[in-house]
């Protein structure tokens, strides 16, 4: 019952008035950002990361970290829910994880049941959030206990596995995903080496002696990159939003979707825990399962409540599930959790097995705040959705320059450096062209966050083994991870080749 005690301590953090405020702020801003077409959880968290620094400036370091992560996590799952608002009302998904919601959400809205669809989506998100929270509570301690026994070699290999998993699933071309991973790792080496004090790749630029600032790169890649993308897609004006008549789903709706929600939450949670898979795949998978198990599969795509409940419960379940490897192992499984982890590191909090021992206030405070946040999402749904329904038709003409200005403001106020502003701009432009040509960005961020740790563990392992690289294969745990990582990369490649050579198969 140790866990209960920890959780209660967590609540004592989460229920401090300023943290309640942060969590509310997080979910409201998050759902707003999620609702805006083109901005998703990843760009939302990146864009608002600088503001958490400003807001938490007056607190002591540990409390500041707890409050910041509470706010950012609120934005994360808020945005997951918010993505469904534009899916349902506009038939334009706010982010990739909300694509499946358009299939039944928009037809429901056309039948005049937009309000019911939104409420179902909120309840489904709540269910996903709560299920994943219970998973988090009961898995966190055992997992970090296991991870505590890992040596540097095991850790190195585990992180390689994490990178391999994310690269293997991201984007169309694995070569490109791996290139992005390596670039991220290389970017992480810039600056003064923390072990030897030697400067590396700084080219005499004092701005990068401390390394390339993660915050700057994240805002550039995700906030600016997304905005630049929307410049090219701004022909969505004139879309009519569906009217919201009543917010209350019928009893029949609830009955129909209850089972689907539970299943979706579980599917989402387990998919989220796996590195690399994430919310988009979870929502897709959950929708397919719901359709397969339904008594009326023909209703799907024509406004079935289950069709809204399934993907929405799954994507929020995945959001919670993805926190597990990030918090307990220090290995984020997705782009958004990588940014969250980067934020924690900036507060001098190292996620990983020691997090729960060294910073219980941060870890359990975050977990408890997610209860509060998920309740808030359901309760706030009715009053705030109408506002967001107006927000999503903000003309892109104003929205895009605003978001750019906010990015500039955010980065400048934290870094106070023109160099960082230019770096951010450069990252934004690069992100646009890279993403457009199928170079995925998630592996890049992940590699930037994991880079220093991978290198340190590698060097520690090699110091133990006196420079013998076989240590990574001689240690059984490490060997298993490395083989797992290799399989993750090789199996899809082999499958692809088999499909190509065997005639009559699908082209993809």
């Amino acid at each position, binding site marked *: 019952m140790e866990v209960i005690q920890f959780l209660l301590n967590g609540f004592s953090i989460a229920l401090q008035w300023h943290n309640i405020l942060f969590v509310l702020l997080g979910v409201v801003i998050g759902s707003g950002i999620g609702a805006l077409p083109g901005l998703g959880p990843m760009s939302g968290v990146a864009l608002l990361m600088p503001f958490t*620094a400003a807001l938490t400036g007056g607190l002591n370091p540990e409390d500041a970290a707890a409050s910041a992560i509470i706010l950012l996590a609120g934005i994360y799952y808020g945005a997951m829910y918010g993505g469904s608002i534009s899916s349902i009302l506009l038939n334009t998904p706010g982010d990739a994880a909300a694509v499946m919601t358009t299939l039944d959400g928009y037809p429901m809205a056309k039948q005049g049941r937009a309000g019911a669809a939104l409420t179902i989506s909120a309840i489904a998100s709540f269910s996903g959030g709560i299920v994943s929270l219970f998973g988090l509570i009961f898995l966190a301690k055992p997992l970090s206990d296991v991870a505590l026994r890992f040596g540097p070699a095991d850790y190195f290999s585990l992180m390689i596995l994490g990178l391999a998993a994310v690269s293997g699933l991201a984007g169309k071309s694995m070569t490109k995903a791996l290139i992005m991973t390596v670039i991220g790792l290389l970017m992480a080496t810039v600056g003064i080496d923390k072990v030897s004090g030697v400067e590396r790749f700084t080219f005499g630029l004092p701005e990068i002696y*401390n390394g390339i600032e993660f915050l700057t790169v994240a805002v550039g890649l995700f906030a600016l990159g997304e905005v630049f993308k929307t410049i090219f897609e701004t022909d969505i004006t004139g879309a009519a939003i569906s009217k919201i008549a009543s917010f209350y789903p019928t009893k029949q709706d609830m009955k129909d979707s209850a089972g689907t929600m539970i299943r979706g939450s579980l599917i989402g949670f387990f998919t989220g825990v796996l590195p690399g898979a994430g919310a988009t795949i979870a929502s897709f998978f959950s929708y397919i399962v719901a359709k397969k198990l339904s008594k009326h599969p023909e209703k799907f795509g024509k406004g079935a409540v289950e069709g809204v409940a399934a993907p929405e419960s799954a994507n929020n379940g995945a959001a919670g599930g993805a926190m597990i490897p990030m918090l307990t192992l220090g290995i984020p499984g997705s782009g958004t959790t990588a940014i969250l982890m980067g934020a924690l590191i900036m507060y001098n909090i190292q996620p990983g097995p020691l997090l729960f021992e060294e910073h219980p206030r941060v870890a359990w405070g975050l977990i408890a705040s997610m209860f509060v946040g998920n309740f808030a999402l359901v309760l706030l749904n009715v009053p705030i959705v109408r506002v967001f329904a107006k927000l999503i038709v903000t003309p892109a003409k*104003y929205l895009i320059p605003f978001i750019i200005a906010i990015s500039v403001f955010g980065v400048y106020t934290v870094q106070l450096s023109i160099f960082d502003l230019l770096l951010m701009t450069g990252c934004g432009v690069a992100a646009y062209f890279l993403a457009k040509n199928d170079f995925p960005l998630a592996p890049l961020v992940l590699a930037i966050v994991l880079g220093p740790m991978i290198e340190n563990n590698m060097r520690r392992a090699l110091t133990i083994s006196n420079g013998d690289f076989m240590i990574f294969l001689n240690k059984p745990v490490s060997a298993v991870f490395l083989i797992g990582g290799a399989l993750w990369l090789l199996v899809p490649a082999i499958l692809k080749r088999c499909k190509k050579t065997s005639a009559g198969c699908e082209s993809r």
Partner: protein
Amino acid sequence: MNKTFDRYASIVLMAFGTMFAWQSTKISASAYGSVVGPNVFPFGLGLILVALSAGLLYGTFRYKQEEREKTPMHYKKFWIIVFSLTLYCVFLEQIGYVIGTFLFLLVGFQAMQRGNVWKSAIIAAVFSFVIYYLYAVLLNGTLPGWPVWFTHWRFDYGSYSVFAQRLQHRAAVA
């Protein structure tokens, strides 16, 4: 997939990888108490990057260029915005936050869609003033105020954020 882009990208990346590998040979190879110096990791990564981009380059010769559907391109808009953003960043400290943001937003709004200049100007002015007032005046944060040739020039270095302590944080990673 865009073959031309991939080809150029792979050449640039190959150069990048070579540069990293070559530069890391210049880094001191030993560190006190450690067999493996700070040069090993980037050197290896540089080589891997060269190999991967060679793979990408090889790949571009193997597939056919897919027909891209022609979408109305907004490159002009894009470059105007990127260019004005760059100017905004470079001159932010000289011209101050309010003026810089106002000009950037005005250009940005007009670049996105030609329209009523006065309406854009009012929105841009309100945004930049409100942000400056809330952050710099009310919260006492640091933003470049007004240019020198304005009468009341102010620039306070007062606040020191958590993020400035990055160096120790990175060390804690180990």
